[in-house]
C-alpha cells in the first residue's frame, strides 16, 4: 500500500505543472490530481455531480487568488498599474507632482498718466516724481472673457537707474500750446491667471503628527503663504526632511542691483509643509511635520547625545542599530501646528480657456498701489484713475488637468532626475534653472581643477542689456554659491570664476566675378559671417574652425576665390568701442585649422559692423 501511495505521489508530482491560470485549467488540474491520488475513492467529477461542484468551488478560489496575485504584481509596475491609488503611489515615489489645471502667464504692460514737470537740469519735461506710483503685486486684472490675472511682482514706476534717470518708458501724452502737461509712463510685468483665495483653518490644541489640511478649492497652482495667528510662516518644501528653504532678499548693493535685483538667502524652516494633490478630486492637501510645538525642543537637528550609546562603565562597545524613527520625536521633520488658526493664501484655477488672446486683458479688477513719495491728493487720484493695462502678446502656458496616462509617462523621466548634483549635466541644469531674479547666467563652462582632484572650475559669464558678454555680477556669483551649496555632494568643491571674453575681428580678400557689384558681394559676406557667429552659437571653451569662415565666404554668390583671410584678436578701446581686456595669441593657438581658446575662454564677435572687413578684387 505504501508503495502504491509513493507511486501515486511520484506520478502526481510529474504531472503537476503550476501553469494553471484560469478556472477551467485549475478545474482540470484538480480532477487530474484527484484521479491520481484517489482513484479508488471517487470517480464522478462531472459538472452534475457533488464532487464536480466541490471541484468547481476549489477552482473558483484558485482562479480568484491567481487573479489577485497577478493583479498585485501588475500594480507594482507603474506602466501596468490600473488602480488609481497605485499610480499615485508610483508618482509619489518617482517624485512626480500631481497637479490640477495649469494657469497661464501673460506679459502685460501697465500705463499710468502722471503730470509732467520741467527738469531744468536736463531742460526737458519729465514725469512728476512724487506722482509715480508702485503698482503692488497682487493687483488683479481681468480679460474680456472674465479670466482673472494676478500681478506677480511690484511694478515700480518710480525706479531710477544709477544716474538718477527714470527707468520706465514714458511719452508725452498731452500738450497744450506746445507745453506737455501729462506723461504716459509704461512698465512691463508678468501676470498669472487664477483666483487668489484665503482660507482660514482653525487648528485644535492637540498634537497630531503630520497633520493634514485639505484646501476647499481644486486646481491649486501655488500656495502663496501660510501663516498662523502668531505670525509664524510655514514654508513649502519638497519633502519634510528638507529643513532649509531659499528666500529672495532685495539686493541693496549699488554696484549690481540693476542686474541682480534679489540675493539668495538660505534660511532654516522649522515650520514647513509638503503639498499633495488628489488625482481624482484635484484638491490639494498640506501635510505638516511631526514635531510637537508645546514640547521644549527647539533643535533643528536632534541633539546627538540623545542618540549616543551609553558607555558608562564600559571599555568597549559593539555594533549597534539606530532607529531613524527616533528622529520623528524632534522637530526635524517640522512642527505640526496646534492651538492656532492657519491663514492659507493660495491661487487656484486654470485650463485652456485661460490662454487668452493678445490685447484682451484690459480691465483693472482690484488695484493695490502705493506712492514712494507723498503726492498731492489730486495727483494721486488722477494717477489711480488713469491706470490702464494691456497684454501685447497672448497669454500662454495654461493647460487642462493632466490625465493619469500623461502623469504615468512622466515617471520614467522623473526617475532620472535628482535633487543633488552628481554629474556635470546635473550641475549645468541646476545653474541654468536659477530663477532670473537672482541673476541670469548666460554661459557656464566647467573644467577640472589643476590643484584639487575633487574640485571643478566653473566659469560663468552674463549678458548686458545690449546682448554683449559682460562679467557676471558678484551678487550673482554669491547667489550661485548659496544655491549650488544646497545640492552639491559634501566632498565636492566648485570654484566660481569669470570666463574670459575673447573679442575677435575678421579681415578677408576675395576675388569676385567681374559682372558682380563688389560692394553687394562684400555686404553679403559680412552679413553671413555676422549671422553665423552670433553670440548665441558660442559656448565657453568652444573652439572656432577657421574653415567655417572660408566656407561662408566662398559659398557666397559671385565669389570666385578667397585670396586672404585673417582672424585676429581685438582688445582695449577703439574709438568709442570697448572690447575685452583679455587677449591671447591666435596664431600660436591655431592647430590643424582650429583655434582653441584658453580654458574658460569664450569668443565674441562684438561689433560685426566694425569687426568684419573685406576687400574685393
Amino acid at each position, binding site marked *: 500500500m505504501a508503495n502504491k501511495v509513493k507511486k501515486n505521489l511520484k506520478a502526481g508530482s510529474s504531472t503537476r505543472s503550476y501553469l494553471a491560470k484560469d478556472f477551467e485549467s485549475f478545474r482540470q488540474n484538480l480532477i487530474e490530481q484527484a484521479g491520481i491520488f484517489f482513484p479508488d475513492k*471517487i*470517480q*464522478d467529477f*462531472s*459538472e452534475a455531480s*457533488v*464532487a464536480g*461542484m466541490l471541484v468547481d468551488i476549489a477552482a473558483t478560489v484558485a482562479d480568484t487568488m491567481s487573479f489577485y496575485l497577478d493583479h498585485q504584481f501588475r500594480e507594482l509596475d507603474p506602466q501596468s498599474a490600473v488602480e488609481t491609488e497605485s499610480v499615485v503611489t508610483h508618482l509619489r515615489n518617482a517624485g512626480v507632482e500631481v497637479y490640477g489645471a495649469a494657469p497661464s502667464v501673460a506679459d502685460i504692460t501697465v500705463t499710468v498718466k502722471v503730470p509732467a514737470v520741467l527738469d531744468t537740469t536736463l531742460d526737458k519735461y519729465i514725469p512728476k516724481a512724487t506722482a509715480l506710483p508702485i503698482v503692488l503685486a497682487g493687483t488683479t486684472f481681468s480679460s474680456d472673457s472674465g479670466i482673472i490675472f494676478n500681478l506677480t511682482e511690484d511694478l515700480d514706476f518710480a525706479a531710477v537707474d544709477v544716474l538718477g534717470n527714470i527707468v520706465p518708458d514714458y511719452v508725452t501724452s498731452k500738450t497744450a500750446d506746445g507745453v506737455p502737461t501729462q506723461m504716459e509712463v509704461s512698465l512691463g510685468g508678468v501676470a498669472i491667471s487664477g483666483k487668489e483665495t484665503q482660507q482660514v483653518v482653525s487648528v485644535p490644541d492637540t498634537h497630531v503628527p503630520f497633520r493634514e489640511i485639505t484646501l476647499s478649492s481644486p486646481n491649486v497652482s501655488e500656495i502663496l503663504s501660510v501663516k498662523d495667528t502668531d505670525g509664524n510662516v510655514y514654508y513649502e518644501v519638497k519633502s519634510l526632511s528638507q529643513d532649509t528653504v531659499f528666500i529672495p532678499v532685495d539686493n541693496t548693493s549699488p554696484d549690481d542691483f540693476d542686474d541682480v535685483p534679489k540675493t539668495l538667502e538660505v534660511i532654516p524652516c522649522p515650520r514647513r509643509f509638503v503639498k499633495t494633490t488628489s488625482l481624482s478630486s484635484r484638491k490639494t492637501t498640506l501635510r505638516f511635520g511631526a514635531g510637537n510645538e508645546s514640547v521644549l525642543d527647539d533643535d533643528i537637528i536632534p541633539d546627538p547625545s540623545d542618540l549616543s550609546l551609553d558607555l558608562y562603565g564600559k571599555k568597549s562597545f559593539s555594533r549597534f542599530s539606530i532607529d531613524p524613527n527616533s528622529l520623528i520625536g524632534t522637530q526635524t521633520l517640522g512642527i505640526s501646528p496646534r492651538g492656532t488658526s492657519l491663514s492659507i493664501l493660495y491661487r487656484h484655477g486654470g485650463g485652456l480657456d485661460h490662454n487668452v488672446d493678445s490685447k484682451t486683458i484690459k480691465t483693472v479688477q482690484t488695484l493695490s498701489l502705493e506712492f514712494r513719495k507723498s503726492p498731492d491728493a489730486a495727483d494721486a487720484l488722477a494717477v489711480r484713475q488713469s491706470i490702464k493695462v494691456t497684454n501685447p502678446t497672448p497669454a500662454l502656458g495654461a493647460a487642462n488637468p493632466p490625465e493619469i496616462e500623461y502623469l504615468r509617462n512622466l515617471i520614467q523621466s522623473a526617475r532620472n532626475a535628482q535633487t543633488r548634483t552628481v554629474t556635470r549635466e546635473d550641475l549645468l541644469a541646476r545653474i541654468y534653472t536659477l530663477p532670473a531674479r537672482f541673476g541670469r547666467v548666460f554661459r557656464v563652462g566647467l573644467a577640472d581643477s589643476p590643484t584639487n582632484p575633487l574640485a571643478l572650475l566653473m566659469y560663468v559669464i552674463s549678458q548686458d542689456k545690449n546682448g554683449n558678454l559682460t562679467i557676471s555680477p558678484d551678487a550673482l556669483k554669491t547667489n550661485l554659491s548659496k544655491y549650488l551649496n544646497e545640492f552639491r555632494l559634501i566632498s565636492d568643491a566648485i570654484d566660481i570664476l569669470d570666463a574670459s571674453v575673447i573679442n575677435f575681428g575678421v579681415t578677408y580678400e576675395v576675388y569676385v566675378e567681374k559682372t558682380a557689384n563688389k560692394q553687394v558681394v562684400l555686404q553679403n559676406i559680412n552679413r553671413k559671417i555676422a549671422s553665423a557667429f552670433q553670440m548665441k552659437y558660442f559656448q565657453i571653451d568652444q573652439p572656432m574652425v577657421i574653415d567655417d569662415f572660408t566656407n561662408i565666404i566662398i559659398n557666397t554668390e559671385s565669389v570666385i576665390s578667397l585670396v586672404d583671410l585673417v582672424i585676429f584678436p581685438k582688445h582695449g578701446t577703439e574709438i568709442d568701442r570697448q572690447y575685452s581686456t583679455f587677449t591671447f595669441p591666435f596664431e600660436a593657438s591655431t592647430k590643424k585649422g582650429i583655434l582653441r581658446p584658453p580654458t574658460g575662454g569664450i569668443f565674441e564677435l562684438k561689433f560685426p559692423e566694425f569687426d568684419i572687413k573685406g576687400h574685393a578684387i
Partner: protein
Amino acid sequence: MSQETKVYDFASAGQTFDQYKESLIASPPNKPIGIATPIRISSANSSLLHMHTNLGLQIKDNLRNMLATNHGERVMLGDYGANLLPLAYELGTESADTAAVSRISATVSKYMPYVSLTTFEPIRETSLDGALARVGVRVQFNVPSLSIGTQTVEAMVLSLG
C-alpha cells in the same frame, strides 16, 4: 551433442496466482463512484461520506440535483441547472410546462448528454386548506449507452412549508 530444453506452450500463458490476488484487491466489486445526496456520513469504513457504487443511481442523483438547481446558483457555471424556480407558480399550465420541458432538455443535453429524457410531469401539492404547498417535476429517463432502462426522478422546485 544433446541439449535438454523446456518448451512452453502459449496456451498456458495467463496470470500468476499473486497477480490474480492483487487484481482482486485493486478492483473491488463495489467501487465508489460519487457522493450520494443528501450528503450524509457513511456507516462503512471505506469512506467518510455515503457514496454511490451503482452508476445508475449516481446518474439519477445527479439528474435530480440538476433539476433542482436554478441559474446562477452554481459557482462559475451560471447556466447550470433547469432553472425551474421562475416557473414554479405556473407549472401545470401548458405554457409553463412547455417552457420547463425546454429548459430541462437544454441543460441535460449540455451537462448530461448521455441521458435520454422520456416524459415530464409537473407535481403540484396543496395543503389541507387548498393552498399551494410544494411544486416539483417528475421526469422519466434512460441511459442507452449504459443499458440503463427507464428510471423516474422527482425533484422539488418550490416548498412552501
